[in-house]
């Protein structure tokens, strides 16, 4: 495999035309999905995930609740058409359960679960397309969905993958690169500068680790900026809508939507 694809060419470009530290395009859609309390659809390059959040609410199974804090319940489903080769994974697939557990443990120290004893926060992750950096996309989308749901968080969680090709570090890997180079996923809390997740399934030389780790932490800050803009935009739109509603209603019988349209 590795002999056929040039991960990093002499000009310093990767197979999809990016530079070493360049991230792919991130598109964030925070519109409401169905009846969910919060949702976020994040497109990161060709990876696309949709996360919906319900709660905090009463748990379906009372026995699973904790007396002093809320339980994070992460369920993940991967669309069969999301990969190049069709593969239907059941909900009990080991790989999926593992990913879900990783997402849950990433968010446990960040969500202020102690505010909601005996309740449950459901996080449903749908993978619609995958092209590398799946776990970071899921984590970033989950952060945004929790924010839109109004769940109190200590900080954002921003994740990114990093890999090393011979001695040169790369950021935000595609499937092609993930198959080829040792890589790890890092999730950081950008404001407090804490790390909530570091995971690696391949072997990496210990001397390369430090450089890559620091780079990934820095990239987390960049992603944070992107996520912050998206949240800010939505909040501004909501605040404007609230303003328009109260003023428009008092003045005369305008259709609320029309007034809202004027203000934005």
């Amino acid at each position, binding site marked *: 495999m590795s002999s056929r694809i040039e991960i990093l060419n002499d000009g310093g470009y990767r197979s999809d035309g990016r530079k070493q530290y360049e991230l792919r395009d991130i598109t964030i859609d925070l*519109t*409401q*999905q*169905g*009846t*969910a309390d919060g949702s976020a659809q994040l497109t990161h390059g*060709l990876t696309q995930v*949709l996360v*919906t959040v*319900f709660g905090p609410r009463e748990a*379906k199974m009372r026995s699973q609740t904790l007396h002093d804090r809320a339980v994070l319940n992460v*369920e993940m*489903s991967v*669309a*069969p*058409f*999301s*990969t*190049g080769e*069709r593969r*239907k994974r059941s*909900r009990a697939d080991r790989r999926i359960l593992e990913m879900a557990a990783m997402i849950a443990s990433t968010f446990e120290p960040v969500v202020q679960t102690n505010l909601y004893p005996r309740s449950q926060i*459901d996080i*449903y992750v*749908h993978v*619609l*397309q995958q092209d590398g950096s799946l776990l970071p996309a899921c984590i970033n989308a989950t952060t945004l969905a929790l924010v839109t749901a109004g769940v109190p968080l200590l900080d954002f969680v921003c994740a990114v993958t990093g890999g090393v090709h011979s001695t040169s570090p790369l950021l935000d890997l595609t499937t092609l690169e993930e198959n080829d180079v040792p890589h790890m996923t890092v999730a950081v809390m950008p404001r407090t500068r804490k790390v909530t997740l570091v995971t690696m399934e391949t072997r990496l030389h210990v001397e390369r680790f430090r450089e890559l780790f620091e780079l990934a932490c820095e990239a987390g800050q960049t992603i944070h900026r992107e996520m912050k803009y998206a949240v800010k935009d939505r909040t501004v739109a909501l605040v404007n809508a609230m303003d328009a509603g109260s003023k428009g209603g008092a003045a005369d019988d305008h259709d609320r*939507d029309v007034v*809202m*349209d004027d203000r934005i």
Partner: protein
Amino acid sequence: MAVALVSKSERDYIKTSLQTASPLRADGRSLLDFRTVLLETGVAPLANGSARLNIGKVAREGGGGTDVLAAVKLEVEDVESGDGVDGGRVACSVTCSPSAYSHLSSNALDELQHDLTVILQQTIAHRSLHPSNLTIIPGRKAWLLNIDAVVLADSGNVVDALFMAARAALWDTKVPRTRPVEYRAPESSRATEKETQDSMDVDQGTSGFDTRDMARDAADFELPDYWDEGEVLHGRERWPICVTLNLLPPIHLLDATLTEEASIPLRLHLMFSFPPSTPPILQAIRLSGPGELDLAYVKSCITDGEKYARELFSALESKLREEDLRRNTKARDRFSSLR
């Protein structure tokens, strides 16, 4: 499908308002009105055809509605050794997101998924609708057409949404062009084959590329490099659509919301196919929910259903042709104007 939490009195309230002389629905529609249907094709780049469909999205706030994503993926199957069928086969699966049915347990969700899969599979995979261009090499290789639908949100009328999304995804599907290839061993190697069988000396002078096994008129195929992604499925005009009549004799209503579905448990699903220049065909029919019906009433329902299905079909058809235009001609024009 999913029983929303509706109290007895609310159920009664909805029923009574529907049965008055001028029937009332909570969102102001008449009994036969559909909510807004939004459709986009080509949403999954890794699939051979895909569509996302939404019924009843709230206009400006952007939320709500039944949301279905359907994608078609083609796989090569071996007819002789694998579980392929000569002429290709069609397989459907429906996945329901737990976020669409957050009140259901995972077992109940599995049952619902299975139920919807069966409805889709029995109708769409029927021989009468089978596309004729799923064969790659007759008797050897054929395409397996997988339709995977994901219900992302449910606010009523999920079966109609599923069929519309499946139809749109199938309409969008392109079957890659294939060219059959045959390996013919040169005469000399055939001669050596005979010899080796006799002498059991396998290492005797054949070339490095050993085609002795394939010499028994083996055939394979290749994918020629061509400018488009392939040809559309044959008979794509025939894929059926479904109308669900929610029955509250003597009236019936279309496109029920969740609360309406919860108050009117009796439903008649009618799947119609409208092949061009022939009379419509009733592909499947399914009655769900408790209760009994007059035969004459069912007949009148089918006649009415055909009328509604025809309207829905022509609306969907014009949208699909528009999408075809957007994705092919317009995209090409835009690209050439950029250059």
